[in-house]
Structure formats: structure tokens, C-alpha cells
């Protein structure tokens, strides 16, 4: 939908210098306000005139919302920390290399220089019917254009669809869910902290949103506990091009394997559902089992139970199964 149409329509711009000022502004303008972090998702909406907020609250001048710091053996990451910072940050690389790796495969270098971790996990879906301004369920209408006999739905959901079949496109989100991260949200009534797993929501909970942020609320930080610091991990992103693309499917797994036996593990995929898809039952089933081919095969088959592909995305089912197998037994070096 990239039609070149001169400058965006006018909006009122606010550039608060503190998170509390930003929250005040958001409370004042309510659903008229659009929060902009790096802007790499926002600009598409604004330039295409699909979303026309009256007020944009740009967080670029807020101090104290970016950077990584130690937090009891884990880390706290400011929501405005750029993805490039996460790729290179020594603390993240040492404790949670899976997050560095995930941040490093997002989009292109320029986007990673501008895009933030808060924005990456709060970005909207890439369903082109929705992004093209079609009045679908997610846009407040009463039809899904991606789930019709003639729809082009190669990138859409195979799991957890409920009227809407869009998927979450984030690469860092599954890594954060795997690491059991906590999302720190500031709002008019103070601060609340939710598990990353509960931050992302499917259409069954709210079909118009991908996360639990309500109008007036601001994601300020992400805390990763020490639970999974320095453990084994597996991350893989499958996409059409080796660089500069959204994932078809990606997988993030953290695990502790002792003497060949899986002691504890968390496995999360994205690109298969409207939110990062955690395989809690598979995790339970493989805990205490050897990290070998037969466990991997069992886990792979379990993971795709209930998968319901659309016309063009059937390939995601074996893709998901094989990624789960790789996450459990690892990949043989050639």
C-alpha cells in the first residue's frame, strides 16, 4: 500500500521529557492520542491515512526510558531502548543472548537503529487487508477478508484464530515470553506489572488490540528475571529473505539440559497466532526426558495439535513441527 502521498495529515505533536508527563498527556487526550516510540510502525498507519490520530505523543525526548541495567541478576530494559542497543549490550549478550539474537534479526540496520524494544513488542499485525484499511473485524467491522476462499493468506494464523486470522509479527516478543519477562506499565492510576505471556492477547479477548495496554497507559520498561540467565537457548527465524523481512514463523526456547536430560524448558513461537504461542503442554511433556530425537519427534507432533491452516498457509504446520524438533534436540553442525 505504499503510495507516495506527500506529507502526513496534520496532528498536534507533544514531546514530553518524562514518563509522568507522557502519562498526563495520554490521560488528557484519551483515545485521541497516539503513542509514538521509534515510529517505524506508526508512520505506515499515518502516511496511509488509515489511522488519523488528533494527537501524537512522541516519546523520543523522554529521558530515563532507555538503556539496560542490572536488576538482581536479571535486567531492566527501558522501553525506548533501541534494538541495535540490545544487539550490542554486554549485559544482555552475557545473560540473555537469545534476546540479542532476536533483536538482531529484526528488519534492517536503519530500522533497528530507530526502532525500540517497546515498539517492537507493541507493533500492530501485518495483515495487509487490515493494514490496507479494509473494514475487517480488527478494524471494528464484521468480516475477515483474509479468511475467505479467494483470500491471500500465506502469512496468516494456524492457531488460536477467532474471527480474525492475523498474526503477531514480533521477533523479540517470543524471546521475552520464553525468558518470563515482566512488562512494566504506567497509567493514570499508577504502575502495574504483567507477565509478558499475558501482555499479548488474541482476538478472543480483544479483537482490536494485540496487547493489554489501554488508552492512557504507557509501557515504560521490561524486566527479565534471573531465572533463565545464561542458560542454553535456541532461536530461529524463518523468513522469505535472509535479511529485512518479517518472520513466517520464529521460535524462541530456553532450556536447562543436564546429563542429556531436559530439566526445565520454555518454548514459544510467533507468526503462528495473534500472540506469541507458548507450548506449555509440550514443555511439561518433555521435562525429565532425554533431549534426543524421539523426544523431539514427540514434541513436534504435540505442538501442532489443533492447528487449522487456511488455504495458503498449510506449510506453517510442518514448519512449526520441525522448528520445535530443532529447539529440543538442537541442530547438527554440518
Amino acid at each position, binding site marked *: 500500500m*505504499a503510495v*507516495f502521498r506527500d*506529507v*502526513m*495529515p*496534520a*496532528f*498536534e*505533536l*507533544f*514531546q*514530553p*521529557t518524562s514518563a509522568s*508527563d*507522557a502519562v*498526563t*498527556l495520554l490521560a*488528557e487526550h484519551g483515545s485521541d492520542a497516539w503513542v*509514538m516510540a521509534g*515510529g*517505524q510502525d506508526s*508512520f*505506515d498507519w*499515518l*502516511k496511509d491515512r488509515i489511522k488519523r490520530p488528533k494527537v*501524537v*505523543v*512522541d516519546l*523520543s*525526548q523522554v529521558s530515563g526510558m532507555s538503556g539496560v541495567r542490572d536488576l538482581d541478576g536479571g535486567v531492566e530494559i527501558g522501553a525506548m531502548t533501541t534494538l*541495535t542497543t540490545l544487539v550490542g549490550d554486554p549485559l544482555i549478550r552475557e545473560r540473555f543472548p537469545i534476546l540479542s539474537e532476536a533483536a538482531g534479526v529484526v*528488519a*534492517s*540496520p*536503519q*530500522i533497528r*537503529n*530507530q526502532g525500540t524494544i517497546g515498539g517492537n513488542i507493541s507493533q500492530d499485525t501485518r495483515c495487509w487487508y487490515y493494514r490496507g484499511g479494509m473494514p475487517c473485524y480488527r478494524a471494528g467491522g464484521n468480516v475477515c477478508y483474509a479468511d475467505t476462499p479467494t483470500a491471500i493468506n500465506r502469512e496468516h494464523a494456524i492457531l488460536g484464530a477467532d474471527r480474525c486470522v492475523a498474526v503477531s509479527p514480533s521477533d523479540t516478543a517470543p524471546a521475552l515470553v520464553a525468558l518470563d519477562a515482566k512488562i512494566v506499565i504506567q497509567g493514570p492510576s499508577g504502575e502495574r506489572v504483567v507477565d509478558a505471556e499475558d501482555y499479548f492477547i488474541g482476538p478472543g479477548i480483544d479483537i482490536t488490540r494485540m496487547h493489554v495496554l489501554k488508552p492512557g497507559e504507557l509501557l515504560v520498561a521490561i524486566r527479565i528475571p534471573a531465572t533463565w540467565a545464561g542458560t542454553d537457548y535456541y532461536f530461529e527465524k524463518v523468513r522469505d529473505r535472509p*535479511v*529485512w523481512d518479517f518472520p513466517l514463523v520464529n521460535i524462541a526456547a530456553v532450556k536447562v539440559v543436564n546429563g542429556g536430560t531436559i530439566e526445565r524448558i520454555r518454548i514459544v513461537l510467533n507468526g503462528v497466532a495473534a500472540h506469541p504461542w507458548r507450548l506449555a503442554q509440550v514443555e511439561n511433556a518433555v521435562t525429565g526426558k532425554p533431549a534426543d530425537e524421539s523426544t523431539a519427534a514427540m514434541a513436534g507432533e504435540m505442538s501442532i495439535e489443533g492447528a487449522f491452516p487456511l488455504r495458503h498457509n498449510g506449510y506453517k504446520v510442518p514448519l512449526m513441527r520441525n522448528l520445535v524438533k530443532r529447539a529440543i534436540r538442537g541442530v547438527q553442525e554440518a
Partner: protein
Amino acid sequence: MSDEHDPQSKYVPTRRDLIKGVIAAGAVSSTGYLFRGSITRAFAAAPGSVERMLTLDVNGQQRRVDVMKQETLAMTLRYKLGLTGTKLGCDRAECGACSVLIDDVPHYSCSVLTHSTRGKKIQTVEGLASPDGTLHPVQQAVVEQQGFQCAFCMSGFLMATVGFLKTNPNPTRQELAHGISGNLCRCQDYDKILTSLMRGAELSREVNNA
């Protein structure tokens, strides 16, 4: 100002002072009714409100410019400051033709609000060559190797490369390819582009070590 020290002198308004005073008094009396009591409320309720006039640091020059709230840096550079070396290809953060350095880091200028670059150092392709006209080593290498065909994407590639070389001055061909993977060339001349930019990295090292 010598009369300041002269106790005998007294202030005699000049004709200019008188005119200024009349204008100022008029401005106060004519705008007062517009705001009534709301003027204090309007200012108090807007933390982070933005003034349109701002000073940008572009290629080492301080440029005073009137910028719309919704204006992107690419628009300001090209259409307000006349720096048309920065190209607009897609206007959607996809092609990289608009790449500029903001505080030495490559960004898509089509996808940055100009107002968010306040106080930052912006460098465009016009700022690469020295004031005496000596080309930047990466530019020199592109000339030597004839790296581009139509070259619409070139200034973006140059800025992405110059930015990347600041973090990795001695890249392998693979690393540089990854570093400039956010830039597209419609002529599909990537191999020659990469060869010329690798030569650019080499020349940059020679210049920096000299």
C-alpha cells in the same frame, strides 16, 4: 553608552523607541481579550508542547527552519533546506534511499520526525566531502569503481556505509553486505556496489591511518 555614567543625563526617548512602545502596547491590548483567563491554563496544561521553529545541526551548520509537527526529516532536508542529495524512494522505511546519519548512526530520514532530531547532529550526503571539495574516501572509491548505474539509491548507500564503517572499519564482504542490507537498488547492481564500497572501506582505513 557613556551617558550612563553621567548623573546629569536623563532619558530622552528617540522616535524609534516611541514607535516600538506603541506597537508593544497595541499588541498587548489587542490580544488580551482573545485569551481572557485561559492563557495560564493553556500553558500549564501542555507539558511537552512543541514550537514549530527549530534549529537543526545539518552538516555542521546551524539551520533555523520552520517545521510542521508531522514533517519527516526527509521532507525538511529536501524541501525546506534544499538538500536534495537525500532521495525519497518509497517514503515507507523500505528502500534506504533517504538514509542519513543522526549522531553518526544511519537512519531512514523518511521515518523520523524532524522535531525528534532537535539537538542532534545530522549528516547528509552533501556533508561527506571536505569543504575544499576532496571527496570522502567512500565516494572516491565509488567513482573509481563505477559502483552504481542510475545512482538514485547511491546517497543512501553511501550514508549507510559511512555509518556502518564507524562501528566496523574493517568488515568482511559478508559483514558489509549485512551492514547495508537496509538499502535497495532497483538496477540490481549489488555486486558492483559491494565491490566499490569494500574499496571505500579500504580507502577510509588508509585515510584514517595516514
